[in-house]
């Protein structure tokens, strides 16, 4: 996380900037890629488990109205894992993540506007 408040064009700051900040972080140590992969597979298996039992045995262990928020939560966790570790947002500039999430704030607002009965 790094916030630049000084004049970003100053020679002094440019000298301080490492020419390759990414490489400095990753030099010989990489993020836990395989561990994240394992979690993605486990979470996907948990996600599809109820619908597979329904197909194979004809019943779902979890009622549909409980399943919906549960599945959405798992999906958001999986998406966050991909963004934080595979897209390096955990290690990269904070504002990159803020920039990508900002449209969602507007989506929430418009969603609320639609949801209000009028």
């Amino acid at each position, binding site marked *: 996380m790094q916030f630049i408040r000084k004049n970003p064009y100053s020679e002094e700051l440019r000298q301080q900037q490492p020419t*390759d900040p990414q490489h400095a972080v990753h030099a010989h140590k990489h993020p836990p890629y395989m561990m994240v992969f394992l979690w993605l597979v486990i979470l996907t298996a948990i996600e599809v488990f109820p619908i597979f039992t329904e197909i194979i045995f004809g019943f779902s262990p979890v009622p549909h109205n409980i399943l919906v928020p549960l599945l959405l939560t798992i999906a958001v966790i999986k998406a966050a894992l991909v963004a934080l570790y595979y897209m390096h947002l955990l290690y990269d500039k904070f504002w990159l993540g803020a920039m990508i999430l900002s449209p969602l704030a507007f989506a929430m607002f418009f969603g609320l506007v639609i949801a209000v009965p009028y």
Partner: protein
Amino acid sequence: MAIDQHVAGGHAPPHAADAPSTLTVGVGNRKLGLWIFLASEVIFFTALIGGGILLRLTSTPGTWPMPGEVLNVPLTSLNTFILIVSSVTVVQALAALQDNRRQHFRLFLVATFVLGAAFLSVQAYEYYKLIVEEGLMLSQFTMHGHHGEADVVVQSVYGAAFYIQTGFHGMHVFGGVLWLSFVMIKAFLGGYAPDDYEGVEIFGLYWHFVDLVWILLFTIVYLI
């Protein structure tokens, strides 16, 4: 501008032309450009998925099939797995390049290409089955009767929502596979280096984003 000054001062870094174009914000130009593009993609897919949810919530009861009634969830689960594995192969390709393991780097790129093509093939097969056997069209689908009952054709925009959301995602995967073919050509011609990996990194960012969208689409379109 920074690079020009370096050259003028006689301190040209190695691979000056290909080095990550670091500017004052601390992120390379191409990477920053790709993130801005991805922000626009968030708007694009949010609109598509939001539209799909709105259509579902306002649909006449009984005209929106339950999960697994029309769509083939086991087949798509396989496709989800394929796409997750392809995300791992991209990050492993980047890691191999950064560690200067060139053979692994190229191998992981090829693996990603094969997995991306496999995803598209499975999706094409899925579409074919849905159109020919399930009768899933833009404005109607066929509900198969249980216990000898007759099939019922249901008028619904379910098909339109399904094809538009998954179709636009599929086009993104197709675009990614095309992009990857250019990255592979450059890699096999000896391009990229441990200090020149931005081209692979930004392709990876796009590919992971497409995977991320699929993670959400799979849950919203197929599972709930």
